[in-house]
């Protein structure tokens, strides 16, 4: 059994590298390369089901340490895989989603001349992601971390001729880098204090607040929490499969995954917990506010991802890492599906991404439409779909624990806003009359398009049930709570839905109101990007220039030196000589005053 779990998982990881090696060994171009990739991923998924079933059946975990890479002055760096609760469940789910996405991108990127390179990038990304989640020591995790960052850069800037895409890719890398500073801080602290980067060693001792702060900063950078969040909406410049894989299911959860890995450390540190919760609450509320007035379908889904990430951070702050993990898994399904449905819509409408130019797609694209609806309902936490098991549990746990009631309120508001923006997508994209040009190649006949969407739809509906029933319980569910508390998530969501229906219906029934400022705030991402990307560096540069020229050059070198002196003395001499007017009476008067003053003093 031990051998089986180790060998099957390592086999599934190794299968991922085969397509890339194929290219090195057999350089003749083949048309079937994407097909090979997809089949490989399917194989890898099936192989990784075995460890998952073993884990579910027996609770079997393992740690594999293979090979000593090198050692830094008595601290050996090994290549070791930790196959525990989190990684064993995550890897099959990631592979399943990637399989569906690869099949989808065979349809989506069909006309792209560099499709082979695209697939290689996707596979390399998946490979590094799996290194990240199965790492047993921090250096391996860091390799995976940086790997997903680089692949994200390459994939966001896939259409590199477009300036916006390049800027977005650079933005992603820079924000990730800032998060990496936190990661390296933690690593350095651990190296100094624990002399080891192995997770087993670290969990024996304590970590102080500073080191855990570093992890939170890393998560803020990688998982786009508030403060380092602008890269995620900008990352929608990449192709839809990229958005589906990276920025919904796998890469952005890397930061949350890191915090989940370190849960034995964080559960004893209330400062870190509070910080995570407040950060998550701000994130989820802010991005939900931004999502409700966006006009680009991919940006709405991106903000939705960001909001759910905030929710995961809140859960970590509640000291419920397993619930956060559950939400990661269920979220992967329906978010990837949402992205794929929007990709289908975009491609069908001849690359139109603005929801104000879509409409009436309900009878035309039935499978896409139903999948979109199912996915949105799952996102909102409709009872007994996938999202319900994780999201509702999170909100129940939040309502019944001693937490920051401000964070609680924010999260509830964000939940209703979730319903609002999902309704916005459905209303604008699917309902009413069409707003696009009449001659569009609308069809969804290709099996490469339909099958993945259906697969993920099945996952969205059933995954919650399957996972919850089969995963060993690691947390205490709150068993009694008042009826209003239990139904609070549902009530808030339904209210949001109805409100959104009403407001969206207003758009083509009542006259247009003037633009109010709240709309501008929400539409422009709260002015965050404008302030931090433009105003702040401009102010800094101005300050630098003023210091260099005005302060130092002009003042210290000139005025206090020659020019100031010349001015001073010429001024004084002219004022003294202009005192002499030649009138003796004045002179005598001054003499008398001087004498009297001296008399008085002496």
């Amino acid at each position: 059994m031990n051998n089986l779990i180790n060998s099957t998982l390592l086999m599934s990881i190794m299968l991922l590298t085969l397509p890339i090696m194929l290219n090195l060994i057999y350089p003749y171009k083949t048309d079937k390369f994407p097909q090979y990739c997809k089949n490989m991923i399917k194989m890898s998924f099936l192989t990784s089901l075995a460890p998952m079933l073993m884990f579910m059946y027996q609770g079997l975990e393992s740690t594999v340490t293979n090979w000593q890479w090198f050692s830094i002055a008595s601290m050996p760096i090994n290549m070791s895989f930790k196959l525990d609760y989190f990684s064993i469940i995550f890897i099959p789910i990631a592979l399943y989603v990637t399989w569906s996405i690869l099949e989808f991108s065979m349809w989506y990127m069909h006309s792209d001349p560099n499709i082979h390179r695209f697939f290689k990038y996707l596979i390399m990304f998946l490979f590094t992601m799996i290194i990240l989640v199965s790492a047993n020591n921090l250096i391996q995790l860091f390799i995976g971390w940086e790997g997903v960052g680089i692949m994200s850069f390459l994939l966001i800037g896939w259409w590199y001729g477009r300036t916006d895409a390049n800027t977005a890719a650079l933005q992603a890398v820079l924000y990730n880098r800032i998060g990496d500073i936190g990661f390296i801080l933690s690593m350095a602290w651990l190296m100094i204090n624990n002399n080891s980067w192995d997770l087993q060693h670290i969990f024996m001792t304590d970590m102080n607040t500073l080191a855990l702060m570093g992890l939170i900063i890393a998560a803020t950078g990688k998982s786009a929490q508030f403060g380092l969040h602008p890269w995620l909406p900008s990352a929608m410049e990449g192709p839809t499969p990229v958005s589906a894989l990276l920025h919904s299911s796998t890469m952005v959860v890397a930061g949350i995954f890191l915090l989940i890995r370190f849960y034995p450390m964080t559960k004893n540190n209330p400062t870190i917990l509070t910080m995570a919760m407040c950060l998550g609450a701000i994130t989820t509320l802010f991005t939900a506010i931004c999502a409700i007035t966006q006009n680009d379908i991919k940006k709405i889904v991106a903000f939705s991802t960001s909001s759910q990430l905030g929710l995961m951070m809140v859960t970590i702050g509640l000291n419920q890492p397993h619930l956060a993990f559950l939400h990661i898994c269920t979220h992967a399904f329906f978010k990837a599906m949402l992205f794929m449905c929007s990709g289908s819509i975009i491609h069908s409408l001849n690359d139109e991404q603005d929801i104000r130019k879509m409409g009436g797609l309900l009878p035309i694209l039935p499978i896409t439409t139903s999948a979109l609806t199912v996915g949105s309902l799952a996102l909102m936490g409709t009872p007994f779909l996938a999202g319900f098991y994780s999201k509702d549990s999170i909100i129940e746990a939040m309502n019944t624990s001693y937490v920051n009631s401000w964070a609680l309120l924010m999260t509830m508001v964000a939940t209703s806003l979730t319903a609002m923006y999902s309704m916005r997508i459905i209303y604008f994209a699917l309902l009413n009359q069409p707003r696009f040009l009449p001659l569009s190649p609308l069809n969804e006949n290709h099996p490469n398009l339909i099958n993945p969407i259906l697969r993920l739809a099945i996952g969205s509906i059933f995954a919650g049930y399957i996972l919850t029933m089969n995963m060993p319980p690691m947390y205490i569910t709150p068993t009694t709570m008042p009826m209003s508390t239990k139904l609070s998530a549902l009530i808030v969501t339904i209210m949001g839905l109805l409100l959104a229906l009403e407001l969206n219906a207003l758009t083509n029934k009542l006259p247009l109101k003037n633009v109010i400022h709240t709309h501008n705030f929400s539409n422009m991402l709260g002015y965050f990007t404008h302030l931090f990307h433009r105003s702040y560096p401009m102010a800094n540069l101005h300050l630098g220039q003023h210091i260099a020229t005005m302060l130092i050059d002009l003042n210290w070198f000139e005025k206090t030196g020659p020019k100031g002196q010349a001015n001073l003395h010429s001024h004084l001499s002219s004022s003294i000589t202009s005192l002499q007017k030649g009138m003796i009476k004045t002179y005598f008067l001054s003499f008398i005053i001087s004498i009297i003053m001296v008399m008085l003093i002496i």
Partner: protein
Amino acid sequence: TIFSTHWLMAWMGLEINTLAVIPMMTYPNNMRNTESAIKYFLMQATASMIIMFAIIYNSWMTNQWTLFQVSDNLAITLMTLALAMKLGLAPFHFWVPEVTQGIPLMSGMILLTWQKIAPTSIMFQISPSMNMNILITLAILSTMLGGWGGLNQTHLRKILAYSSIAHMGWMTIIVMINPSLTILNLIIYIITTLTTFLSLNFTSMTKINMLSNTWNKSTSITIILLLTLLSLGGLPPLTGFMPKWLIIQELATTNNITIATLLALSALLNLFFYMRLIYVSTLTIFPSNNSSKFQWFHQPTK
């Protein structure tokens, strides 16, 4: 005045001195000379009056007329201020530039040199009982005003007047600490000022742009002016440096370093306008047309 021990004799000497100099000042008998002479007379008369008052007050209080025993506080203060008026120290300096400007060069010379001897000798003799605070105020004000006032002038006589104010400041500061240095400073100042005035008189120059022709008229004057002015400024190794050096040393040993620094910095201002004169006369040759060259061959027409 120098040799008397009785106050009345000293005062008489001062008065006779004043009265004698007045006609010398009005020699060419034009309006300007007269005006300067009247100003001078008024100033000196007021000063003498105050001296007389101080003398009588002192004799009333202490019942003695000895020159060097002025014990009363009011008397010594009044005496100091009156002597400052006579010498032309700030803040009583307003008459010096105008009077010096209005009279011919030779009279100006006597005004600035001979007239200083008498009041300085009185100061020398009453120096032990003087009030240091007043002296410090007078001296620092004088050096500063002398320095800054001289920067804005183009007439040579006014420049020399301001230089006299400044040098008087140097002399008064040291009169309580080491009075012989006062006399030394006075003597060296008299020598250099006499030299300056006589050389200016030889070529009858009264303005700075007149100085520019010195190389042409008599080149030796150029060199003499150079050295004398630098000495007035107090540059080593010329003689003018000696009194300044000794005064600063005396001040430093009695722990008056701030005063010494202020005096030295003000002397820099003096040096600047001397340098300006040297620049015009010696260091550069101002443009002149060819017909006015080789003037040293001829006698000056006067």
